[in-house]
């Protein structure tokens, strides 16, 4: 009973932390666009947080640069359990065009565990919303 209540409240108001691990900004402005009045992610209870300590879901972009590797891990560790990571964009999934560079790691899942992937370069705000909703639906189903 109590667990159901916790899951229900988690699904109804996922607090999101936006983590940029060296992306070109394209995915980041699309994530912001998803929160803007046109797409309005807040109607699903999605709220952007300024610190990882308040977040349930980490929305991560970028191919993880050498400089940011440790900071990404630290941010991930600060998120309270249970935590979910959504990799947004092609770079976050596989490194995409930056694959083969001397200072990128080729994707978020090389560094931290990832729960959902949203492909696209950059994904459209609709796709980002769809990905977040899919992740939340999978939570209710167990």
């Amino acid at each position: 009973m109590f667990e159901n209540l916790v899951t229900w409240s988690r699904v109804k108001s996922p607090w999101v932390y936006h983590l940029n691990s060296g992306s070109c900004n394209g995915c980041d402005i699309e994530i912001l666009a998803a929160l803007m009045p046109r797409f309005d992610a807040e109607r699903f209870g999605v709220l952007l947080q300024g610190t990882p300590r308040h977040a349930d879901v980490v929305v991560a972009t970028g191919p993880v640069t050498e400089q940011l590797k440790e900071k990404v891990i630290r941010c991930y560790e600060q998120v309270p359990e249970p935590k979910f990571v959504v990799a947004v964009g092609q770079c976050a999934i596989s490194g995409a065009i930056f694959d083969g560079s001397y200072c990128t790691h080729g994707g978020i899942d090389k560094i931290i565990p990832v729960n959902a992937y949203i492909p696209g370069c950059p994904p459209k705000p609709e796709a980002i919303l769809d990905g977040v909703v899919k992740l939340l639906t999978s939570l209710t189903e167990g």
Partner: protein
Amino acid sequence: MAEVTIPIGPIHPALKEPERFMITIEGETVVAADVRIGHIHRGIEKLAESKTYIQNLYLTERICGICSFTHTTNFSQATEEILGIEVPKRGVYLRTIVNELERIHSHLLWIGVAGHEMGFDTLFMYSWDDREIVQDLLEIMTGNRVNYAYNTIGGVRRDMSPEIAQKALKAMDKLEVAMQKYIDIGLNEDTILKRTQGVGVLSPADARRLTAVGPRLRASGIKYDVRKADPHAAYDEVPFEVITSDTHDVHGQYVVRALETLESIKMVRWMVTNLPDGDYRVKTPRKVPEGESFSRTEAPRGEDIHWLVANGTDKPERLKIRAPTYANIANVAFNLKGAHIADVPMIVAGIDPCMGCMDRVIIIDADKKTQTVTDEAGLWKFANDWYANGGKK
């Protein structure tokens, strides 16, 4: 009073991109500021050497997602110059139209971010909502909202049909109404006036000395715009004004950007109605003959420079890029000194920083394990000492 050093970043809530600012404060006043850049260094210049010219178009596009088009324009212009190719007039016009649409979307984005930094989130929401008008138009024209993949060497990849032209004109009418609203807000709204007037004042002399570019330079009263000073694409034919401000502060930057957007709307309208007929691209050879070229464009944030060396193969020998934020970050560090701590986000956001653009250059002193990039005086001292010691530290 004791001095306290506060590290801000690299991952922090104010900006969406990682960057580290070391700010030393005494009471409420900033006495020293250092900017540590390089967190988003992805090795683009080196990667460019391993990719063909066509692949490099997609790579340069991803230097920065906001001003992606200006980078591909620059790269195509540099390649076309070595190839000795004349782009058809229609192609040049279409390129210029998308360049201006990009400026409109970027400036609207900045107005929103500036509003957010000063705690005026209503403005953020409104301006990003109106930005969707131009995003829709870009999507119809090019097929994507952010990284358009519209440029190619020898022209552009899609034509503009009369229906799209009609839609563009309608969108410009809507945007003009919206922009008038933001100009009104910028000139009369107390929140904006109190948070921006007299903040981040950069005198014209300092702006020149610290190599400011773009709206930051024009807000310091210097009438310099690459579109006028060294016209590329169709800018020598399109009528427009260079906007400057004599207030030299962040408010000046707001006004310059808002009025510039209005100019861009007029330019797009003029170009769509006067679009020349004919081809929009020419076929180009894959291999580029030996040679060097230099191209610059006015990105939404300022002057963007590409320097290309070709060696006769289908891959470049060297590509050097200097993006506008790299030129602007020196004046941010300068302006932070003596500022009130609450004004720090406004000053940083003022130049419309785009770290993705800037972070291709990195200075690390491995011997001393220093974490900060020195300021200009420090660099001069370093250079002088280096030469005085015959090239040793």
